[in-house]
C-alpha cells in the first residue's frame, strides 16, 4: 500500500465513523437514559449512568398494559400478513394461470393501490369502519391494512408464479388435481421465498403503522404499541427516563427481528426498487 492509499483509507473510515456516531448517538442516549435519574439525564446525556437503575425498565416490563399493547400489535400484524398472503396469492394465482376475458383489466384495477398513499382515503375509511360497526376492534386495522397491501403483494406474487414450471401443473392435472387444490398443494409451498418477503414487508408496515390505529382505535385495551407509547409519553411528560425505557423496550424487538429476517427485509425493500 502506498502512503496515499493509507491516508485515503483513514479519511474514509474517519468519515464513516462520524456518520455512524450521528446515527448511533441518539439511540445510545435513549438506551442509557432508561437507566438514569432525570437529574442525571439533564447533566450528562451520553455518559454511562452513575448507578444502573433497573426500576424504570422493571416497572414497564411488569406493567400488563405494556404487554397488552405488544400483544395487540402482534395479533393485528400477524392477521394482516395472513390475510394479505392468502387473498393476494389466490388472486395472483388466477392472473398467472388462468387467461380469461377482462383479466388484464382486473389486474390493473388491483394495482391501482400502488399509486396513492394511505392517508388520501383515511377519513372515508374512518366513516366506513364506523358504519360497519368495527370501530375500536382489531378488524378496523387489519382489513384496511391488508387491503392496502394487496396491490404490491399481487404484483410480486404474479411475477413469481409465472416463473414456476408449467409442466408441473400439467402433470398434477393428469393426476386429477384441480386448480384450487394445485394452488394449495404446490403453488404456495413452492413460493415460500416470495411469501416470506411480502410477509415480512407487510408485517413491518403493520407493526409500525400509526395513522390508521390512531384514527380507528379509541380504548387503551385495543391500542397497538405506537399508540400505547404516545399515551405513556403523555402520562410522564417530564420523566424522560420512563419514556426512554419504553422506547428502548420497543426498538429492541425491532432490531432483533431485523437481524433475523435481514435477508428478506433488504430484498423486499430495495430489491423491487432496483428492478423497477
Amino acid at each position, binding site marked *: 500500500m502506498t502512503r496515499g492509499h493509507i491516508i485515503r483509507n483513514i479519511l474514509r473510515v474517519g468519515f464513516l465513523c462520524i456518520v455512524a456516531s450521528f446515527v448511533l448517538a441518539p439511540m445510545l442516549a435513549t438506551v442509557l437514559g432508561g437507566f438514569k435519574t432525570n437529574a442525571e439525564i439533564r447533566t450528562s*446525556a451520553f455518559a454511562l449512568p452513575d448507578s444502573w437503575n433497573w426500576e424504570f425498565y422493571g416497572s414497564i416490563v411488569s406493567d400488563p398494559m405494556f404487554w397488552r399493547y405488544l400483544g395487540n400489535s402482534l395479533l393485528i400484524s400477524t392477521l394482516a400478513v395472513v390475510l394479505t398472503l392468502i387473498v393476494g396469492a389466490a388472486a395472483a394465482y388466477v392472473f398467472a394461470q388462468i387467461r380469461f376475458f377482462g383479466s388484464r383489466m382486473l389486474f390493473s384495477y388491483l394495482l391501482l393501490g400502488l399509486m396513492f398513499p394511505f392517508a388520501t382515503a383515511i377519513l*372515508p375509511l374512518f366513516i366506513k369502519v364506523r358504519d360497519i360497526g368495527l370501530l375500536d376492534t382489531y378488524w378496523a386495522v387489519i382489513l384496511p391494512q391488508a*387491503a392496502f397491501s394487496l396491490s404490491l403483494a399481487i404484483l410480486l406474487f404474479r411475477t413469481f408464479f409465472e416463473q414456476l414450471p408449467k409442466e408441473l401443473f400439467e402433470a398434477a392435472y393428469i393426476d386429477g388435481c384441480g386448480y384450487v387444490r394445485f394452488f394449495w398443494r404446490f403453488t404456495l409451498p413452492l413460493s415460500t421465498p416470495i411469501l416470506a418477503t411480502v410477509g415480512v414487508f407487510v408485517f413491518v408496515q403493520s407493526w409500525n403503522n400509526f395513522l390508521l390505529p390512531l384514527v380507528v382505535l379509541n380504548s387503551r385495551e385495543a391500542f397497538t404499541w405506537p399508540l400505547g407509547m404516545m399515551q405513556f409519553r403523555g402520562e410522564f411528560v417530564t420523566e424522560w427516563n420512563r419514556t426512554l425505557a419504553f422506547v428502548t423496550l420497543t426498538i429492541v424487538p*425491532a432490531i432483533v427481528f431485523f437481524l433475523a429476517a435481514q435477508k428478506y427485509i433488504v430484498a423486499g*425493500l*430495495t430489491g423491487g426498487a432496483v428492478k423497477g
Partner: protein
Amino acid sequence: MATSVASRRLSASERLRRSLNNGRVTAALILLPPALILFTLFVMLPLGESVYYAFFNWNGYGTPTDYVGMENFQRIAGHSVFQKAVTNTLKIVAISLFLQMPLALLLALLIYRKTPTNALFRLIFFVPYILAEVAAGLIWSFVFDGNYGVTASIAQSMGVESFFILADRDWAFVAVMTVIVWKYFGFHMMIYIAALQSVPEDLIEAARIEGAKRHQIVRYVQIPQIKHALVVSAFFAIIGALQVFDIIIPLTNGGPSNQTHTIVTYLYTFGLTRLNIGFGSAVGVILFIAAITVAVFYQRFFMNRSET
C-alpha cells in the same frame, strides 16, 4: 384403425381441455373475489367517497346534505397553514434530493464492496430505517428537549443557555428535516449499494487500465450505470415526502403556531380531529392528485427510457 385411435386421442384431449376450462371458471370464481371485495371495500370505495364528500360541508354524522361545491377547496387553498404545509413538503423533497441522496450515494460508494467492516457500517446506517417513525420521533424529541433532554445536557456542559429548537418558529422544521435525513438516508444508500454491486467489475477494471482516476470512474462509469436506481430513489423520496405524518406528531405535533405541518398532519388536524369530514376529504383529494401526478411522471419516465 389408425384414424379411430387418433380421433379417440383427439376427443380425449378435447375433453381434457373442456374440463380444464370448467375448472378454470370455478377456480377464478373462488380465488379472485376475496381480493376484489377487500380491495374495493377498503381502498377504492373510500377513495371514491373522499371525492364525493369533498363537495360537502359534513361533520360525519347522518348523510352529507350540505352541498358546498368547490368551497372546501377554496378554503384550503386560501388557508395559510395549508400553504405552509405544502412549502414544508417541498422543503422535504429538496432536502432529500440535494442533501440526503448525495450523502447516501457517497456512503454507498464508500462501503458497497463486500467486506466485514463495510457490512457493519451498512448495518449501522440502516438501523434508523427499521425503527418505527413514532419511536424515531420520540427519540429525537428527547434529543431536542432543551429542558430535560440531550440539548439541555449539552448546553449545560458548554455553559451556554439552553435552547428550544422545536419551539422555535424558524428552526423547528430544520430539526424535523434533520430527523427525516437521519431516518431515511440508509434506505437510499441500500438501494445504491444493491445497484453498485451489480455494476460489472470488468467495466471498472477496463476504465482503470485506461488510466481513469477513482473520481473519474465514479463520475463516468458507476453513476451512469446506477442511474436507474438514482431515479427510483428520487421518486421514493418524493412519494415519501407526501406522506410524512408519524414523525411530526411526537416531535412538534404541527407546532409551534402551525409552522411544521405537512399535508397529512394538516389533513389529520383540521379534518379529523375537528370532524370536518368534507374539508378533510378535500385535502385527501388534493393529496391524491399530487400522488397521481408523481406516478404519471414516473411511468412516463420509464416508458421513454425503454423506448430509447
